[in-house]
């Protein structure tokens, strides 16, 4: 709060950098690149709201029914059928706030739908974030090597992207997903394998222009080994592209996984996923609409949140965006 220019509360970066306030007369202070990015991001309202919603959804999904051996605070699991309460309708109330017996109602055989949706959320989020991280790593490595060394790797990368234009991602993922079977970890790996090419192409483009810059030339003249040049000098400058596209990869992975499960080539019963729930209850729209609406809304909300966060990051990393 020491900065008089700062009108928004709670966006103040660490104070240790205020030593840089040499030019007190103009009443400006300098920020490092990282601080600028953070400040711009924190000011992006849609991105902040999305971040809060996303964190909230992730927390609920993983704490409510627990993850693996860790138990959650919601007493019911997603496999046991319960006696039908309230004609299986959702019992959640907002005024006064209460969850009731079955907040999202029950499915056709009485299973607790809240637990089912939470389980589906866990699966979708797990796949999405695993794919996001893995595909970002693969894409960055391939893109950086292709852009820096050119040659064979580049030729491979460009043909691989051409391949993905001809075989739609969903189709390739469906074939691989069928091979992967019902194992969620394998499914995540498979989706990562089909979704890294776009990012690799973008990173390559970025590296191609960065490697011609003076600071890279200087590093090379000093005899810095190539891996160090890539990691220390080039990639930090391509961070914006990488981070923004990592978020886009996550939202694409959410949609891809749910679509695969909907088609029957992804997560399979008895386990569940949001796409599988939508697929299972698409004919319940007239009789029990909540069975269809709730999982779909969750897919929409998490995908939307991730996209808005990506938009906020894009604005934050864009050097043309002016502070103040």
């Amino acid at each position, binding site marked *: 709060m020491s900065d008089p220019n700062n009108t928004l509360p709670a966006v103040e970066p660490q104070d240790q950098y205020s030593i840089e306030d040499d030019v007190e007369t103009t009443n400006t202070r300098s920020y490092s690149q990282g601080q600028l990015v953070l400040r711009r991001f924190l000011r992006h309202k849609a991105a902040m709201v999305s971040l809060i919603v996303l964190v909230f959804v992730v927390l609920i999904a993983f704490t409510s029914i627990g993850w693996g051996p860790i138990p959650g605070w919601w007493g019911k699991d997603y496999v046991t059928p319960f006696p039908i309460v309230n004609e299986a309708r959702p019992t959640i109330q907002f005024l006064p706030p209460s969850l009731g017996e079955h907040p999202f109602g029950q499915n056709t055989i009485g299973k607790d739908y809240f637990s089912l949706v939470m389980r589906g959320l866990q699966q979708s989020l797990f796949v999405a974030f695993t794919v996001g991280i893995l595909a970002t790593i693969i894409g960055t490595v391939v893109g950086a090597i292709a852009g820096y060394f050119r040659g064979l790797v580049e030729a491979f990368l460009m043909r691989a992207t051409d391949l993905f234009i001809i075989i739609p991602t969903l189709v390739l993922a469906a074939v691989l997903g069928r*091979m992967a079977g019902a194992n969620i970890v394998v499914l995540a790996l498979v989706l990562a394998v089909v979704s890294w090419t776009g990012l690799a192409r973008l990173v390559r483009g970025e590296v191609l222009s960065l490697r011609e810059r003076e600071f890279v030339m200087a590093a090379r003249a000093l005899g810095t080994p190539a891996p160090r040049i890539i990691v220390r000098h080039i990639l930090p400058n391509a961070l914006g592209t990488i981070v923004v596209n990592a978020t886009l990869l996550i939202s694409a992975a959410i*949609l891809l996984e*749910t679509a695969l499960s909907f088609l029957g080539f992804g997560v399979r019963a008895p386990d569940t996923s949001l796409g599988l729930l*939508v697929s299972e209850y698409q004919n319940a729209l007239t009789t029990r609409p909540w069975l269809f609406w709730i999982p779909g809304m969750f897919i929409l909300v998490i995908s939307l949140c991730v996209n808005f966060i990506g938009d906020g990051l894009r604005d934050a990393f864009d050097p043309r965006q002016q502070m103040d």
Partner: protein
Amino acid sequence: MISQAPARPPAQPKDLLVIRYIAKRLGISLVVLLLGSLLMFVLTINSGDPLSDLRESNAPNRDNLIKQRTELMRLDNPWYERYFSWLGGAAKCLIGQCDLGQDRQGRGVNELVIAAAGSTLRLVVLATVFAIVIGVVLGIVTAIRQYSGFDYAVTFMAFVFFSLPVFWAAVLLKHYAAIEFNNWIVDAHFSPTSIVVIAAVLAFILTAAIGGPMKRRLISFGAAFVVFAGTFFYFDAVTWFRRPAIGLPIYAIVVLAAAAIIIVMTSGFKNHRVRNAVATTAIVSIVGYALMRGTLMKQPSMLLLFACLAIAVVVAVVSGYAWGGFSRRQAISASSVLAVVASLVALADLALSNWAAYIKLQPRPIPTIGSATPNFEAGFWGHFIDTATHLILPTVVLTLISIASYTRYTRASMLDVLNQDYIRTARSKGVSERKVITRHAFRNSLIPLATIVAFDFAGLIGGAVITETVFGWQGMGALFKAGLDTVDPAPVMAFFLVTGTAAVLMNLVADIAYAFLDPRIAR
């Protein structure tokens, strides 16, 4: 095309460079297509056990059935023999004798593909065209009105559509749009309240897109509201939605209005060369349609329709050539666009004129299943409307989903272009804003889009697989899904061949557009 290739041929004419560039891209695509087929084949035959259903069956002749299927699918042969025998059959497509093999029931895949490919490609191409047109228009309007309410609203909607799961949206649309519309069309009446609300909403959207100061906004809102509400009251009074028609007078007005818009968008009314060329095309279209309408209503055929379109375009090109003078190229393209628009309006008029007859046969006009009504007995126009109504919902779903990326990309690239120095130069020398946008900015802002079309087309084919599942189409998607479910390579490979070739062709179109928009590319 083959040898004698110096790195940069010095004095070749421009067209030849473009052709070389395209030929090179096409060659690469074909190699990639070949590699892709190998990958798909290997993955498909290893994706599961094609005999699993027989292994679990209790039929007394189980072993016999297993043996039969092993023989039919050649499961004992090594994978490369199976691949090359498929490739050999598929390669015959180049000489016009396709042999795509048999599926595991022994049906020829050729026939299955012929039945399926038409409906799927129709769907995907239509959705691509709609998405590009609407997305580009929205993107440009939002870029011009950056940071306005309209911009924020469109941006938000783009994000929502971008995040929308296709299958979920498809089911919702099927249930709410189709079934509710079918219930409503039975008597097709609006209540006065809903007319007022609809007119107010439409007028509000239009006002937001037009923009301007408060006073102008109020005036345009009022005018638009009165026009919309009046139109709806009129439509309601004559139950227009059950027996709609455009009719010749309205057709003439619409074509003239389209001509005026095209002139304003391209050269402005002061350039009499373009103006005269477009006006000639408009008048010829109106007169021609007045003469042809009766024939087209009574004895229509696909050939006749295409012939009319071709004549319209030829007239447009000739009049553009004759009037054009120094702006010949612009005159030709502007009048050709008008010819296509006029033909589409004529088609809409013909279809709407036959709607009343169609709705008598089909009391619930918007179907939710399939790509055509089976055993539907109606003339040419009946079938035309039947296909169109089956296409509506899947096309809307696919279009909605890819509109978002086109809108965002067009907006970004338009903003990028509008910040360039040459735009500032144009503005500072007094070029009107309309000219700045239509002449200097628009074409350049389209350049990045050409690359996105290729990626988006692949995405749309993936989307079509899902959409076909939801709407129960017997298209390529169903072929693929069934083939993969039963680990049957022939249908899966046929799917790959058709969609892959379509993607290559789409890429080619994008490349040509790219070379046309940015001549530097070809060098």
